[in-house]
């Protein structure tokens, strides 16, 4: 085998089918990571050409221009210019252009040619171009550009044969000669197109027809509502049996594997620390996979930018962008897939705002806490004859979350020092049927990113919380609950003066600590504190009547308000850390959420006391 692999970079406009071509070339031999110090994804793959040449292919982020407007484009520019601190300039640039959209894509091709590096041009989606009656004079284009030009079809299994034959044909193509080009690249593109391309209609008729319905002010919003309802329903309810299955399965596995061990610290560590943590990580997978399946289908089909188009005005008023809608909606199921879904927001500032407000969406883990408290304290009374007071309170909790997310986004917009206008300027690509291979590869990537980067943190934190709740063990003859004697119990007692102004007793303070692993754990932790045994519904019913006797209504309402805001979920903070690559953002998010939670609980508690409850 020859010494070093040829380093090839795929460069091109967004929506040129570059990643599909990358998937076709490298298949599953891909490595996905982040560029150092950035949240931009770095995708690399390896491949052996038919002639036995070893290639190392880098899929650079899509760019419209080297006059970079986003972190993605900065990476692409720096690598192509050879100015990236860690990534050497590629040996060969494969410039990918959509054959059906050459008017836009060729301008960037000319910009890349100006780099004077060995390159060739791949006209992708050449099958779609032929279908639409677009005729491209390949030899003519090749002659005028002075670089090899090949046709590719990324969605056919042998759609890159020509490209690989060209790479095998010569060591490296000659450097492009750009002396003939004038300053005005648009004029050059027009001249090239006039000489080499025959184009019957401007856009595909099918796109026009679909857009007339999908972007219609009334029909379009109705279609969007149905699509979102289906997606939300799927994430919320289809995932539930799978999540329960994982929960039970991991617990069973933990029991079986640790049964042989004698009762003691090691067994407890493995069962209640390690396996509980493992379950805590895996339980998120169904939601992440189902949500991303929908998002990927919407993205690949070209619908996602249309949804963003319909919603942009509403979201923009609150300092967000149309693209923030899906991540925020997903956060109702769980903030973790929601925050991961912000990757579809290209603008870094918009993305950050979305990540900061996503935890305010009422996730499904808050529901057990809400139901417990509502059932115990809110009477079953009808309001206005048709509504149930318990239902009204639950709705109010959800609504408070949404309203505060919009308010916080508006405040962030006011506070930030960068007041510059960030453009929407979003391309609405042609509709496409999503390709199964590309969906599968992307889905696997998402799952691996979650397991590798977030899973470790969640696992470590669960083990830590296990340690805090189990040690030191109470001495013989200790009358209270074991957790009361542990570090967690002591921390709970220490925190009590801090939480007294919002009406929390030490029992709640203790339950809040294991509740950091996952919000719903607070319910079983309360059960432990009140020295109850049992599981699920039975525990909840028993616990409900106990706390109804022990707590005042003001305390219960205060705890509800706390749960609307508090970052009571370390996994969310872990995913924010991973997605923003910044501890500062995590501290800002945790800080403002705790402050809001404390403030809201304080006001709720004292208003309720004042009203005499």
């Amino acid at each position, binding site marked *: 085998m020859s010494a070093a692999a040829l380093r090839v970079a795929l460069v091109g406009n967004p929506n040129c089918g570059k990643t599909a071509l990358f998937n076709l070339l490298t298949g599953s031999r891909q490595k996905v990571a982040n560029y150092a110090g950035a949240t931009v994804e770095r995708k690399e793959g390896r491949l052996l050409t038919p002639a036995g040449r070893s290639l190392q292919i880098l899929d650079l982020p899509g760019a*419209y*221009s080297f*006059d970079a*407007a986003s972190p993605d484009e900065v990476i692409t520019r720096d690598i192509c210019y050879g100015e990236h601190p860690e990534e050497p300039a590629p040996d060969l640039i494969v410039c990918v252009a959509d054959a*059906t*959209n*050459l*008017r*836009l894509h060729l*301008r960037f091709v000319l910009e890349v040619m100006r780099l004077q590096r060995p390159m060739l041009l791949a006209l992708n989606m050449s099958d779609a171009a032929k279908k639409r009656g677009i005729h491209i004079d390949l030899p003519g284009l090749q002659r005028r550009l002075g670089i090899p030009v090949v046709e590719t079809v990324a969605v056919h299994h042998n759609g890159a044969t020509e490209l690989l034959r060209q790479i095998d044909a010569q060591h490296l193509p000659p450097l492009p000669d750009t002396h003939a080009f004038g300053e005005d690249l*648009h004029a050059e593109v*027009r001249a090239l197109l006039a000489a080499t391309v025959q*184009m019957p209609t*401007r*856009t595909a008729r099918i*796109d*026009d027809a679909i*857009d*007339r319905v999908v*972007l219609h*002010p*009334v029909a*379009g*919003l109705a279609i969007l509502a149905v699509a979102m309802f289906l997606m939300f329903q799927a994430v919320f309810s289809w995932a539930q049996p799978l999540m329960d299955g994982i929960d039970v399965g991991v617990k069973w596995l933990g029991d079986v594997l640790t049964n042989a061990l004698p009762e003691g610290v090691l067994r407890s560590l493995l069962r209640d620390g390690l396996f509980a943590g493992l379950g805590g990580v895996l339980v998120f997978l169904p939601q992440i996979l189902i949500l991303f399946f929908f998002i990927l289908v919407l993205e690949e089909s070209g619908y996602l*930018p249309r949804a*963003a*188009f*319909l919603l*942009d*005005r*509403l979201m*923009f008023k609150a300092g967000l962008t149309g693209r923030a809608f899906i991540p925020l909606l997903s956060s109702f199921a769980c903030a973790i897939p929601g925050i991961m879904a912000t990757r579809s927001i290209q603008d870094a500032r918009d993305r950050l705002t979305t990540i900061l407000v996503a935890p305010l969406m009422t996730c499904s883990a808050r529901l057990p806490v809400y139901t417990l408290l509502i059932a115990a304290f809110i009477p079953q009374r009808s309001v206005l004859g048709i509504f149930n007071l318990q239902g009204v309170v639950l709705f109010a909790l959800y609504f408070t979350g949404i309203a505060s997310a919009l308010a916080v986004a508006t405040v962030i917009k006011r506070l930030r020092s960068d007041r510059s*206008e960030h*453009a*929407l*300027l*979003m*391309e*609405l690509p042609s509709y496409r049927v999503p390709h199964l291979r590309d969906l599968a590869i992307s889905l696997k990537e998402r799952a691996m990113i979650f397991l590798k980067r977030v899973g470790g943190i969640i696992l470590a934190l669960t083990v830590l919380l296990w340690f805090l709740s189990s040690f030191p063990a109470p001495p013989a003859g200790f009358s209270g609950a074991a957790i009361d004697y542990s570090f967690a119990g002591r921390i709970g007692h220490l925190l009590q003066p801090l939480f007294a102004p919002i009406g929390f007793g030490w029992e709640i303070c203790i339950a809040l600590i294991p509740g950091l692993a996952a919000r719903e754990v607070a319910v079983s932790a309360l059960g432990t504190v009140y020295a109850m045994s049992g599981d699920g519904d039975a525990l909840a019913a028993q616990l409900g009547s106990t706390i109804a006797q022990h707590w005042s209504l003001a305390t219960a309402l205060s705890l509800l308000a706390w749960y609307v805001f508090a970052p009571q979920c370390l996994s969310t903070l872990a995913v924010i850390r991973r997605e923003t690559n910044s501890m500062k953002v995590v501290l800002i998010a945790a800080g403002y959420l705790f402050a809001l939670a404390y403030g809201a609980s304080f006001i709720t508690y004292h208003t309720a006391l004042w009203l005499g409850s």
Partner: protein
Amino acid sequence: MRLSDLPQNLAATVTAVEALGPADPIARRLRDLGFVQGEPIRVVAQGPVRRDPLLVQIGYTRFALRKTEAARVQVNPGPGSA
């Protein structure tokens, strides 16, 4: 007239992109995307709220532009010369 004032589905031609201020990245980006003199242009759809953003067809491509972005583009109603 400005692209933001162009009635829906009326064919027009770009005459210029005006920069707001000395360094206006949005104006530069618009030019890179093909909003240049002589290019045929058409508003094909408008957002449901206050007709914002606009969906603009230029060349073979469709872009969503907020009205503040579209206001930078000067157009001439009627089919272009280029």
